[in-house]
C-alpha cells in the first residue's frame, strides 16, 4: 500500500522551533494576555496555545513516530487553511512569549510558521499578499513614488548632504505622517545636529514582509536591507536615527540577519536620542503642557528590542506633564493591534485590539496618549475615533518639538489627506474634506445607510497650543 505524503512541510522551521512546539505545557498563561484572542471574543482558535497544539498535531501526524512507522496521516486541506487564517489573526506582538512559562520564542515561531504556510500556499491573509509586489517594485507599501520620499520637507528644514548621522524616515512618516518627519527634522536642526537622509535612495525596511512570512518571496527583505545598509554606509553614516518603531525593529533585528554580520553603523531610536540629548543638557523646554499623559510602549520598540525607559525619561522631564501608567505597561503592555500585517489584512481585528487598548487608556484618566511608533498612533487614533473618546493621540517626537518651541505644522494638507498626517494633540491645522466624487452608475445605497464620516480632524484647539499656521 502506498503511503500518504506528509500534508505539511517543515520548511523555514529550525530544529529548535520544532522543539518549541513540543515544549508547550498547555498552562494557558499566554491565553490571559493575548490581545487578538480577547478582541475576537475569546475564540479559542485564536489563542497562542491552541495554535501551538494544532501545529504540533500536524507535525506529529506528518513526521511523528507513528508517521515514521505506519506512514503520515492525512490532514484535510480545510484544516490547514483554517489554521493559517487563525495564525494570521495575530499581531506578532510577542506577549505570549513574554509570559510563556516554557520560554518559547513565539515571535520567531509565528513568523517562521507563517513563512512555511506561505510556501504551502495557504498564507498570507487578504491584502497582505500585495506586499511583495508593492515593496519589491515600488519600495514602499503605499503605492507612492520614490521621488516623493522627501515631499514632506518644508523650506525651514535643513538636511546635510553628508553627515555621520542619518535619519531613516520610513514609509509611514515619509508619505502619511508628515508631522513625524517635520518634527524629527526640526528637533535635530534646533539641537544643531547635522543629519543626512537617503531621500529617493531610501527603500522600505520591509518589516511588513517579514512579519507576514513573505520574506522569501523574491528575497525582497534581504535586498531591501542590503540596499539600505550599503546606501547608509556609502554616505558615511555612523549613527542612524529611526523615529518609527517598526523600521527600528527591522534595523536592529532583521537587517543584521540579512547582512550576515553586525551593521556598520549604530541604529538608535529617536526616543533614545532625545534621552541622550536630555542627559547632555541640550534640550531646553520652552513651553509647558499641563496635561495628564499616558505612554503606550510599541511592541517593536519595547518588547522586541527592549527600549522602555528612554521615552518615559523624556516625558517625565517635560514641564507640566503628569505621566500616569496604564495597568499593562512595559514588558506586559497590550499591543495596539496594527502589527503583524493585521492592519492591512484584518482591519476589523486591528480596530478591536485598538479599542481594548484605548480602554486601558481610559482607565488611567489620561487626556493624552503618547507613543513612539507612527503605526501604533494611526491604529490607536482609529480606536479612539470608533469609541468617540476625547483623548488626544500623538507621537513623543511631535510633543517634544512643540514643547521645544518648534512648529509641528506640515505643508498644507491635501483634501482628504490621512488624519494622521497632522498633529492630533496640537490641532493647528485641519484637513480639507475630500471633494465629492462624481456620481457613479452603481446601485445606490439604501436611504437608511449612515453617511461616511468626514476625514477631517476635529477643530477644537487646546488652549496651550500655538495658533499660528504659517506653513
Amino acid at each position, binding site marked *: 500500500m502506498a503511503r500518504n505524503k506528509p500534508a505539511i512541510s517543515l520548511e523555514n522551521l529550525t530544529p529548535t522551533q520544532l522543539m518549541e512546539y513540543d515544549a508547550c505545557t498547555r498552562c494557558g*498563561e499566554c491565553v490571559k494576555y493575548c490581545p487578538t484572542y480577547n478582541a475576537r471574543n475569546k475564540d479559542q482558535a485564536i489563542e497562542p496555545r491552541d495554535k501551538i497544539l494544532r501545529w504540533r498535531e500536524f507535525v506529529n501526524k506528518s513526521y511523528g513516530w507513528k508517521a515514521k512507522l505506519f506512514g503520515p496521516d492525512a490532514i484535510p486541506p480545510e484544516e490547514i487553511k483554517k489554521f493559517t487564517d487563525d495564525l494570521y489573526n495575530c499581531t506578532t506582538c510577542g506577549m505570549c512569549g513574554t509570559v510563556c512559562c516554557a520560554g518559547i520564542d513565539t515571535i520567531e515561531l509565528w513568523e517562521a510558521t507563517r513563512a512555511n504556510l506561505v510556501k504551502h500556499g495557504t498564507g498570507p491573509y487578504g491584502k497582505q499578499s500585495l506586499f511583495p509586489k508593492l515593496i519589491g517594485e515600488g519600495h514602499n507599501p503605499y503605492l507612492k513614488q520614490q521621488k516623493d520620499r522627501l515631499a514632506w520637507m518644508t523650506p525651514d528644514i535643513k538636511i546635510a548632504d553628508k553627515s555621520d548621522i542619518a535619519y531613516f524616515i520610513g514609509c509611514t512618516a515619509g508619505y502619511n505622517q508628515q508631522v513625524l518627519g517635520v518634527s524629527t527634522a526640526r528637533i535635530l536642526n534646533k539641537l544643531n545636529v547635522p543629519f543626512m537622509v537617503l531621500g529617493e535612495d531610501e527603500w522600505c525596511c520591509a518589516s511588513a514582509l517579514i512579519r507576514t512570512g513573505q520574506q522569501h518571496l523574491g528575497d525582497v527583505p534581504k535586498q531591501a536591507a542590503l540596499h539600505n545598509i550599503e546606501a547608509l554606509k556609502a554616505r558615511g553614516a555612523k549613527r542612524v536615527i529611526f523615529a518609527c518603531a517598526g523600521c527600528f525593529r527591522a534595523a536592529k533585528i532583521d537587517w543584521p540577519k540579512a547582512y550576515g554580520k553586525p551593521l556598520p553603523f549604530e541604529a538608535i531610536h529617536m526616543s533614545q536620542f532625545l534621552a541622550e540629548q536630555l542627559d547632555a543638557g541640550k534640550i531646553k523646554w520652552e513651553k509647558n503642557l499641563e496635561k495628564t499623559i499616558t505612554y503606550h510602549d510599541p511592541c517593536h520598540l519595547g518588547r522586541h528590542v527592549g527600549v522602555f525607559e528612554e521615552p518615559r525619561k523624556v516625558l517625565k522631564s517635560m514641564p507640566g506633564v503628569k505621566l500616569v501608567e496604564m495597568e499593562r505597561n512595559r514588558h506586559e503592555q497590550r499591543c495596539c493591534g496594527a502589527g503583524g500585517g493585521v492592519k492591512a489584512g484584518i482591519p476589523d481585528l486591528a480596530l478591536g485590539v485598538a479599542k481594548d487598548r484605548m480602554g486601558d487608556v481610559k482607565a488611567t484618566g489620561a487626556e493624552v496618549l503618547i507613543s513612539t511608533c507612527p503605526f501604533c498612533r494611526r491604529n490607536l487614533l482609529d480606536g479612539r475615533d470608533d469609541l468617540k473618546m476625547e483623548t488626544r493621540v500623538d507621537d513623543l517626537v511631535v510633543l517634544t518639538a512643540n514643547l521645544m518651541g518648534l512648529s509641528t505644522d506640515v505643508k498644507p494638507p491635501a483634501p482628504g489627506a490621512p488624519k494622521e498626517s497632522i498633529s492630533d494633540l496640537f490641532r493647528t491645522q485641519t484637513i480639507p474634506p475630500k471633494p465629492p466624487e462624481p456620481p457613479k452608475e452603481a446601485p445606490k445605497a439604501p436611504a437608511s445607510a449612515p453617511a461616511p464620516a468626514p476625514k477631517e480632524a476635529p477643530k477644537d484647539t487646546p488652549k496651550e497650543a500655538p495658533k499660528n499656521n504659517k506653513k
Partner: protein
Amino acid sequence: MTEGLEIFGRTVFDTLFIDWKIMVPVAVFSIIMFFVGLYLQLDKWGRGVPEGATKPAGAWGTLKLIVHRIFERGIGPALGIIILDGLFQRRTWRRRKTEWLMHILIFWGWVGLFMLTVAAAAAEFYGPFILNANYTFFANFWKSIEPLNELFAYMLTAGIVIAVIRRIAFADVPPARFTSVDWIAIIGIGIVVVTGFWAQGLRGSLGVEERMLISAYEAAAPSFFNNAVVLFHEVFTLLFCVAYLPFSKLFHMLVTPLIIMINKGGYVEVNP
C-alpha cells in the same frame, strides 16, 4: 529459592524482592524504548533547518545543536539557567504561584524518589562488593533513607492532587481544546501513585530485615512475593514513566527545560 540474588559469587539483597526475572527484562525494554522514542523525537526535530544552514540538521546534528545552544555563553551562565529555570522553575514562579507549587512538588517528588532508588541500587552493590558486608549494611542504609522516601512520595502525591483540583475547580483560563492526552497522563500517574502506596503498605507490614530475607518474607507474608499489585506497580511504572515518556504528553518534562536553556532563560532573561 535464595536469600538474595547471586551475582559474581556475592549475594545482593534489596527490599523489594519483585521477581527480577520479570523486572530486569521490563527495565531493559523500558530503557531501550526510552532511547528509541528520544531518537524518533530528535529525528523529527532534525528535519528542521538551522539558521544559516541549507540542509536539515538530522537527529545527531540536533543533539549537537542543543548542547551548543545551551553552553554557547559559557558554562557559568548555562548552569545558572539550569539551576534557576530547570530545577527551580523560575519562569513559572514569576507568573503562576500555585502551578509552581504543583510543579515543584511533582518534579522534586519524582526526582527525589528517582535519586533514592539510584542510591539504594548503588548500596545494594556497594555493601557486598566493596565492604564485603552482609545484608545488615543495606538494611541500615534503607532505614536511613526511608523517611525521605516517604517525604518525596507525599510531595508527589500532593502535587498531583493540586493538579487535579486546579484543573477541575480553579482553572484561571479555559482548558486547552485537545485534552485527551492530559487525561491519559493524569490517569497513568494516578495508577502509579495508588498502586505505589498499596505496594508500600504491603511492604511496610514487615520489618526491613524480614523483607530482605525471602524465607522470612514467605513465612510472614506469603502473598507478597509475586503479589499482583506490587508486580503491576513496578512494571506499569517502568513502562509508563520511562518507556512511554518520549511518546507522551509528559515528554514536556524533558523538552520544556531544554527549550528554556536553549533560549537562555526565555524572554525576561534575554530582555531584562
